[in-house]
């Protein structure tokens, strides 16, 4: 009844006159229908990429990290670049599901499920890189702190690299739990509609016997809220900790206090870009334009222009501090290795600036924010730019170290390093294709929850209510309650 005071300026979150049953039908239809030709083509390409990645990893394990052109000077190359990039991609999902839930942002319901799935797959891809980067990967269990038979040998709890182990594994676990607990009611919806035997059985197992009891909903809501409260600082902490991998070192170009907030902003920036890329395709292919509306896209573009500008300010601050700090090594890293267009990697710095800082400014224009083609194009540009940000930070800082005699002339990745990166794309899209085929890409129960409040037909009714005076309205609601 407080809706009297809800502004009509806010457009509906669900287009068209939908009933609860219609919502179920629309979202479950792609799951019940056989996979389309486009789905098979995309899926097969993803699997081929995945296999190529697996072969690249096989080469690396057999012959060592030299297969990736890594050496003493360039110890971190594409692998850690990709690691930081993929972790960053993951952040939008948790941000949408956790921070926006705490801030009571209704628009998250249309996009949260797909974004959370994206988070999980992105973190799975990210986790691959540090693990295979270890070289002797069969020793990977050494990062686990447990009383062991190797003497009193413990991990170094003071090392940011160990903090990473905890941060990424916690992030993955919590995101997975959050995502899956939200899926339970929707899986039950599919189970109860299922006509085929295998589907009844599969979704029966997956939905854990959910019934929709009020007490269960009450606990479910409480669980979601607390998980959101836990995930909110977690989102900020994960990329902060990833940035500590760099910021706590004494490498010129990495040793900066601005890294934690700057990395978090960059993560949200690239994550939202990836959400846009995926959802623009998903809504079109699965015909979900009524649920992922142009309003959703516009809101996310606003987040992109905001975080892109934060990242831009961070770049300028870095430059200013390296000049103001008057440390000649820092100065060299920023003004010679990066800013100088004629230095070996100068091109990558300017590519990063162009993609991340300049191009998103187009979203100051409403027309551009609501243009699907522009949004799709920009989302890809932003992801390229954010990849180059990590590349610039890593490679331009270490290819010329303190000893000029060990300067690398020019670092080029090998086919196997590129192949590993493509392989994670294969993993990511294979997972996403399977997800979009077998799971609801939109949270059905959450859409139903906001349908009455933010559906189009309801908004239309509100116009009549708004036309009434406060006294009339008060009189009416008083009667309705007795």
């Amino acid at each position, binding site marked *: 009844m407080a809706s009297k005071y809800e502004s009509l300026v806010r457009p509906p979150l669900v287009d068209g006159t939908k009933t609860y049953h219609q919502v179920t039908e629309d979202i479950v239809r792609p799951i019940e229908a056989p996979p389309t030709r486009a789905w098979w083509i995309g899926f097969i390409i993803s699997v081929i990429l995945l296999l190529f990645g697996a072969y690249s990893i096989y080469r690396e394990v057999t012959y060592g990290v030299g297969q990736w052109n890594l050496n003493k000077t360039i110890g971190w190359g594409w692998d850690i670049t990709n690691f930081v990039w993929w972790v960053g991609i993951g952040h939008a999902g948790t941000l949408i599901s956790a921070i926006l839930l705490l801030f009571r942002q209704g628009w998250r319901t249309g996009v949260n499920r797909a974004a959370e799935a994206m988070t999980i797959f992105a973190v799975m891809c990210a986790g691959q890189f540090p693990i295979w980067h270890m070289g002797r990967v069969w020793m990977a269990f050494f990062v686990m702190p447990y009383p062991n038979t190797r003497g009193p040998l413990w991990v170094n709890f003071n090392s940011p690299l160990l903090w990473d182990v905890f941060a990424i594994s916690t992030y993955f676990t919590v995101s997975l739990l959050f995502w899956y607990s939200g899926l339970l009611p929707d899986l039950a919806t599919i189970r109860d509609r299922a006509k085929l035997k295998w589907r009844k059985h599969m979704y029966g197992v997956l939905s854990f*016997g959910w019934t929709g*009891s009020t007490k269960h909903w009450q606990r479910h809501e409480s669980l979601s809220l607390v998980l959101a409260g836990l995930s909110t600082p977690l989102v900020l902490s994960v990329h902060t900790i990833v940035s500590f991998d760099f910021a706590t070192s004494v490498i010129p170009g990495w040793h900066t206090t601005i890294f934690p907030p700057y990395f978090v902003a960059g993560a949200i920036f690239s994550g939202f870009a990836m959400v846009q890329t995926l959802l623009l395709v998903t809504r079109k292919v699965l015909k979900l334009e009524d649920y992922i509306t142009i309003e959703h896209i516009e809101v996310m573009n606003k987040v992109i222009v905001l975080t892109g500008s934060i990242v831009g300010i961070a770049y300028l601050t870095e430059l200013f501090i390296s000049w103001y700090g008057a440390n000649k090594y820092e100065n060299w890293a920023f003004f010679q290795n990066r800013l100088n267009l004629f230095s070996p990697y100068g091109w990558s710095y300017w590519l990063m600036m162009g993609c991340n800082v300049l191009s998103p400014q187009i979203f100051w224009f409403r027309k551009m924010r609501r243009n699907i083609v522009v949004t799709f194009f920009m989302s890809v540009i932003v992801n390229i730019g954010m990849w180059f940000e990590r590349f610039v930070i890593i490679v331009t800082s270490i290819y010329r170290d303190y000893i000029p005699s060990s300067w690398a002339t020019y670092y080029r990745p090998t086919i196997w390093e590129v192949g590993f990166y493509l392989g994670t794309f294969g993993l990511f899209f294979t997972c996403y294709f399977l997800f979009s085929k077998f799971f609801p890409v939109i949270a059905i129960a959450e859409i139903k*929850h906001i349908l009455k409040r933010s559906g189009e037909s309801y908004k239309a009714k509100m116009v009549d209510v708004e036309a009434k005076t406060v006294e009339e309205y008060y009189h009416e609601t008083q009667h309705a309650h007795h």
Partner: protein
Amino acid sequence: MAVKKFVVGCFEEEDVLFNAVKKVRKAGYKLHDVYTPMPIHGLDTAMGLRDTSLHTAGFVYGITGTTIALSSISWIFTTDWPLDIGGKPHLALPAWVPICFEFTVLCAAVGMVLTFCYLCQLAPFVKKHHFDLRATDDKFVMVIECTDKTNVEEVKAFLSGAGAQEINVQHAETGWWLGRYDKERKLFEEKTETVTA
């Protein structure tokens, strides 16, 4: 878990359901449960359900996580293996903040989800009786338990008066059992015992 008798009413609108829940409680019928396709805020209060203490449990799990992380790291780095790492102090509290924080979140989240599953009896292969399959789609299903004194016809009439669209009577087990949703199996099969004299 014996088989009990229930009167089941299906509602179309949540507003009607809300009023019906209030009426049922006033009339003194034994409200078994209400099944809805989405969370309805305030319905738990209307039904007279106690607020959940899941969040308190989460807090306890979190504190436990912090304690475990902090105490084990300090024991390891000061007693079990005091190693000089770059001249840093053995008790390097600020450096342990990230791990302690992450472990707190991990324990709280995992503990809460497990507790949630335990309290709601949710697990793979758990099967329950579903009074109406459309309760996860678009129907709001109110279930009233029949006791010895309950007049079924009266309850039916009452539910229909409260706005229920469809009403039926079911015999069901209230608990859960391990089973598959594509196969009918109850917890207790009716067995005929053969007694040999």
